[in-house]
């Protein structure tokens, strides 16, 4: 390669971080950012938190890493998905308050547009289980309109993309066994202990 070609290679020096931040802010102001996300550190690990303008659409434990979690959001909701921590400030504050024990009810809205049918009914019913309380898969299925669809209720809960705020951790097996939890049973136990709910004692 000639010296001239070498001098040209790569282009002039730039600082993309600053320019990108300004561009993303402007895009948000123009209403072009369908989904904003950020990373949030919590006692149960790093959470990917995402919201549309209507409300939360994701709190992810990111078991397969950030890229996979983002691709899931892009596929489910919209690829116009950008890192915009500012839009998640209120949600993050509420999560911190929850984990410190200062908050027992989330005020931040959840965007329910992307759930439908029986799943949506199950998740909506789950959202009504109070802090420190417990319900069972069959009870939730009943509240969702089909007392017998217990396995379907389990699957619906497994598909919950906004755990903690939509408290699927408060749903256990009749008789007190924990059941399942997409984020791992230790996390379910942690959240229940945080809220002072003990399935063995408080068996519904």
């Amino acid at each position, binding site marked *: 390669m000639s010296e001239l070609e070498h001098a040209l*290679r790569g*282009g002039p020096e730039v600082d993309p971080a600053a320019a990108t931040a300004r561009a*993303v802010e402007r895009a948000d102001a123009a209403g072009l950012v369908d989904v904003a996300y950020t990373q949030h550190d919590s006692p149960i690990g790093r959470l990917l938190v995402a919201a549309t303008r209507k409300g939360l659409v994701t709190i992810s434990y990111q078991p397969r890493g950030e890229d996979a979690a983002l691709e899931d959001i892009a596929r489910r909701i919209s690829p116009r998905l950008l890192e915009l921590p500012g839009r998640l400030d209120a949600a993050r504050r509420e999560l911190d308050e929850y984990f410190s024990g200062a908050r027992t009810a989330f005020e931040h809205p959840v965007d329910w547009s992307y759930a439908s049918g029986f799943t949506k009914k199950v998740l909506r019913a789950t959202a009504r289980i109070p802090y420190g309380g417990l319900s069972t898969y069959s009870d939730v299925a009943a509240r969702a309109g089909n007392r017998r669809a217990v396995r379907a209720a389990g699957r619906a809960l497994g598909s919950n993309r906004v755990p903690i705020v939509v408290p699927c951790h408060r749903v256990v097996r009749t008789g007190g066994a924990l059941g399942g939890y997409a984020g791992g049973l230790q996390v379910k136990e942690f959240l229940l202990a945080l809220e002072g709910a003990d399935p063995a004692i408080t068996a519904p």
Partner: protein
Amino acid sequence: MRPPFQQVIDEHADAVLRFLVALCGRSDADDCFQETILSALRAYPRLRHTTNLRGWLFTIAHRKALDAARRRGRAPVPVADVPEGPAHSADGHREVWTLVARLPNKQRAAVYLRYAGGFPYREVARVIDCSEEAARRSVHEGIKKLRQEWRP
């Protein structure tokens, strides 16, 4: 499936910004970059899955740079505004971007895409919206002029 737009930015923002700085100078580049991102975001959901994202972004950026040039009234980029300093090359090559800025619009873009960006001629042509033959000509004429004026 279209990748999350954040990934598109992570992958291409640096290169697109360098392109705009070379074409418009630093003070206009920032605005052009914002305009590029806005346009890209607007069009993103309708984009076909097979689109070459890099080429697509550079095409938008090039159009925004032309818009900025038109607004500037076709005045050349002020020399003081020209990107200083080498990219990843050794010291002593400071003036190359000053010289690039003095090239006519088409040659400036073509030389940049080919030599700084490493684009194949076919892609250069697509970005600056001309035939591949015209793109080759622009690159060769531009590089010839640079060789005459540049001393390491």
